[in-house]
């Protein structure tokens, strides 16, 4: 699903966020990405979601070389990914339902199909009864679940989560992680960046650890040459 071949990312100004990183997440696999803040977790996720381009090396997502994707193609590639943000990035001027339906509207689904899938996604995160609420009226954990529903509503092949439990208490964090595991069990590839080490240990999934832009621990299969 994701293959990194000797990826180096240097930001303007010389800061090297990633240094010669190679990684192989197979289709349907779930892994955690850990490391201190500034270790390069976010940069790695940004390269996959086409926000940043690698300075050196090759990044491949589902057989597409991300190094030479024209700008006009970027939206279509992003539609294969569901992204979950730490601060969930909901749109506060519209209802929970409209937030979750957005990816389907963008992709041009029929409105009946959109309604059906949106309700299914909300049901999956246990928030169907809140579909008409505005996000501001929800708790932090509920907002994050709306964010997850929005990320999965279009059935992406890959889920990326950047510190999804960063602002949540341990009980809520475990609930959120369980939702990711549920998606992994139905065949979705999942990559979660988190520094909640105790929770990660508990879940017993492969872990990739970054330190100052280098991989210092990798449970995943090595990259095939």
């Amino acid at each position, binding site marked *: 699903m994701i293959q990194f071949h000797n990826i180096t990312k240097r930001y303007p100004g010389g800061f090297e966020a990633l240094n010669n990183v190679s990684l192989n997440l197979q289709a*349907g696999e779930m892994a955690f990405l850990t490391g201190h803040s500034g270790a390069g977790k976010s940069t790695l996720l940004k390269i996959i979601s086409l926000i940043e381009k690698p300075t050196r090396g090759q990044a491949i997502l589902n057989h597409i070389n991300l190094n030479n994707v024209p700008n006009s193609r970027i*939206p279509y590639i*992003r*539609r294969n990914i569901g*992204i979950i943000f730490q601060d969930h990035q909901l749109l506060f001027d519209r209802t929970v339902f409209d937030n979750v339906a957005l*990816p389907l509207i*963008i992709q041009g*689904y*029929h*409105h009946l199909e959109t309604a059906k899938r949106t309700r299914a996604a909300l049901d999956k995160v246990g928030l169907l009864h809140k579909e008409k609420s505005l996000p501001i009226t929800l708790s932090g954990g509920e907002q994050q679940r709306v964010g997850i529903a929005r990320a999965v509503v279009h059935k992406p092949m890959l889920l990326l989560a950047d510190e999804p439990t960063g602002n949540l208490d341990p009980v809520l964090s475990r609930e959120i992680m369980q939702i990711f595991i549920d998606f992994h069990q139905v065949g979705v590839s999942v990559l979660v960046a988190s520094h909640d080490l105790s929770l990660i240990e508990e879940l017993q999934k492969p872990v990739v650890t970054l330190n100052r832009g280098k991989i210092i621990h990798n449970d995943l299969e090595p990259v095939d040459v």
Partner: protein
Amino acid sequence: MSDNKHQHRPNALNRFSAWLLHHLQSLVFSLGKAYRSPSATLMTVAVIGITLTLPSGFYLLLKNIQSISGDLRSSTQITLFLDMKLSLDSARQFNAQLKQHAEIADTRFISREQALTDFKQTSGFGKSLDHLNDNPLPHTVIVIPSTELDTLAIKTLLSRLESMAEVDIAKLDTEWLERLFTIVEIAKRSVIIISLLFSFAVLLIIGNTIRLDIQNRYQEIIVTKLIGATNAFIRRPFLYSGVWYGLFGGLLSWLIVELSIIVLSGQFDSLSLLYQSQYTIITFSFSDFLIITGCSTLLGLAGSWLAVARHLNEIEPK
């Protein structure tokens, strides 16, 4: 695994109807957004409306001036003082002959006797003129040129008439008319310049409004881009906002001008009465209405397009 997921993606026909639907949604959404912040919307629309009032008002003024000066042109007369030696019969015959002329709309014949009687009545010299042995006045033909003739053609006609043997003097007082036409021409060009300038101002106003709107929705744009929205998708509601601003601004300017006419029409009627004229003020026709609202809508679209093209591409998730 990717393939069976893709089976659920909408087909081309569905995508097209969804595309149409999104256009409709953007149209309604941008209208709803305008409705939800009425004071901001009203201010923008008012600025656009007032700005457009000047060119559309001038346009209407010009239309009226052109119509009045057109009336004046049709009142252009050439006065022919005929040769003193011409008998009454041959003068009448000459008049009849002129009437047949293609470039002449009408003529009026005044015999020298008639001219003297008229002069006695209107000049106030009355009795003193009785002492004249001879009638010093010639037979006169007043020629009204065809309305299709322009100033130059009228002048050619004048010199042709003057060269005729029966005519002693041909007189046309056109100088003031030419001045008027030149002024009208200057006014016409000024209206074009003013319209262009003010259209440009509207373009900038709408562009700036949309730019602020884009800045306010910065976060939303980033999120939708990350979810996989194309630039066209993000652009759409902003373009429709511009269209609404333009349309409503155009409607407002039309309304302002129409109301001004109602306010002014009383004064105008008394003025036209003083000139013993039947002139009624020309208001906007339906096609004028369509032109004003159409142009302002286009300006709205163009202004928002400029803003969107300049600022939307700058916003990329970081």
